[in-house]
């Protein structure tokens, strides 16, 4: 790959990464504020038992939200690592 091609590819990846950063931030923000609003509204669905004798929707939802946060940083980090690798190879003149 030539320097110009590499630069074009890097620019495209950086643009996508910026879009991804905003999408994931809005997702994180929305999920958090949505969860707080549900808790604040005292939504009856949250106290429904869904697992075993006493695990409610609120507990499952909280664990799921934290899992989504972890998956989102994994996705963002993976995409960012690809950009780092390309930038390193550009620096080395490959």
């Amino acid at each position: 790959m030539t320097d110009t091609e590499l630069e074009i590819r890097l620019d495209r990846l950086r643009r996508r990464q910026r879009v991804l950063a905003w999408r994931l931030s809005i997702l994180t923000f929305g999920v958090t504020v949505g969860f707080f609003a549900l808790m604040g509204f005292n939504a009856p669905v949250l106290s429904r038992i869904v697992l075993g004798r006493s695990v409610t929707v609120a507990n499952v939802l909280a664990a799921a939200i934290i899992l989504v946060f972890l998956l989102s940083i994994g996705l963002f980090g993976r995409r960012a690592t690809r950009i780092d690798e390309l930038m390193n190879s550009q620096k080395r003149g490959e």
Partner: protein
Amino acid sequence: MRSNPVAASIFAGFVLVTLVITYWSNRRSAGTKDFYAAGGMITARQNGLAIAGDYLSAASFLGTIAVFFSVGVSGLLYVVGGVAGWPIAMFLIGERLRNLGRYTFSDALAYRLADKPVRILAAASTLCITFSYLIAQMVGAGTLVQVLFNIPYAYAVVLVGTLMMGYVIFGGMLATTWIQVVKATLLLLTTLAMVVLALRRFGLDLDAILGGAVAVQPDPVRYLRPGQLVSDPVSAISLGIAFALGPAGLPHVLMRFFTVKDARSARRSLSYATAIIAVFQLMVAVLGYAAAALLPRGPLPGGVNMAAIHLAGALGGEALLGVTAAVVFATILAVVSGLMLAGASAVSHDLYKHVLKHGQTGEAAEIRVSRIATVLLGGGVIGLAIVFQHENIGFLATLPLVIAASVNFPTLVLAMHWNGLTTRGAVAGGFAGLVVSIVLLIASNKVWMDILGHHQSLFPYEYPTLFSLSAALSVAFFVSVTDRSSCGRKDRLSFQAQLVYSERAGNDASVRSTRVPADRPSIQNL
């Protein structure tokens, strides 16, 4: 509660280790880069632990378990909220801040905006955040030590304050980072040990722990019903916003992005920190339910905030109670030293060097001012913590996240991501967020009624973030789009160069030449 020799000896051991770290750091630190940013030689993993350590205060450990114990599933708000801010900090701020800044987050703001006005704003918000955080932590520390070690409150506050000042004055960022790493490791291991013991007690069955917690409640339905912690949806949404956006604006956390060598390490630090905080919060939820299941109903010695300590005693006897008490105290010690460094840096780096001396001062003088600021801030905080001993300062603990979400976060994000932001817009929006958040907190029922003794509050909600963040964003937007000054034009034109530098610096040496020249207008021109 009588004093515990295990707790006393572990705490003494921790203090000894921290003093050795401070001495070692002092010998290795030479200039401002070492003092403020640990020479940029902290690894991503260490920094992740230190960031997690900064955030995982005694309040998050004791307070969250206390909520599960006394109120029920509403504690999940703190569990989810505690994790929510870190992904956003990673996506929108981490790498760019590392590339644009040097020692404090205001360096990044001053990259394309006028130096002095944005530094005055950043220093004002940093001092408000650190002061409120420090007083809350110091009052908590004094009360905790009084209960656990039978030391008079004033002595405990002076002891914590003196140690905190010593760490910062002699060890700088290197010492506070390593103290955070040690403390975070101890806190995680202690929490893990408690979770393992709790699970063993209930046959490794999470459902049994929650079932046990529900079974002993006088009103099981109420325990499982959310909405006990925050009384109305507007306050709940405001609290959610503070949790989601606040961590990315905490000055003592933002300073940690400069302790690693490059933007990639800053990003990886945040990945580690998020994972550590997520695991910690989930463990704390388990312990909260275990506390409700195992501890007797009715008033606990030392109050409901001591539920975690009593749970440790119930799970592992006097030895685990002593270990947990010592680790909680070590947590307070580590958190206050990080906060103190952020406050001192705002005074020495932002106000003294850049505002008073126009950036023209030597490293030795800057560090000297930082040390003097540490003594003055530390003395002030010790005095105020003694004065506020009998006050309910719970509202102070929420103030840092509210201010960070209403001032630092919007200003930083707009400066980094919106080409239309001008210096006037940033300063007007930032101060609008600061004033609205503080005024509405004072007008809320927590202060207006509980502390000032009025019969009715002026502001009907518990948390003001929804309003203060809206004020900050709308004022910043309106002032920026109507700004026709030459400074405003220059601010907008500089955005592209900043964008390139913020995404490529550290990896691509050629972009360093695109850096915005430092010919910014002074505050008098605004």
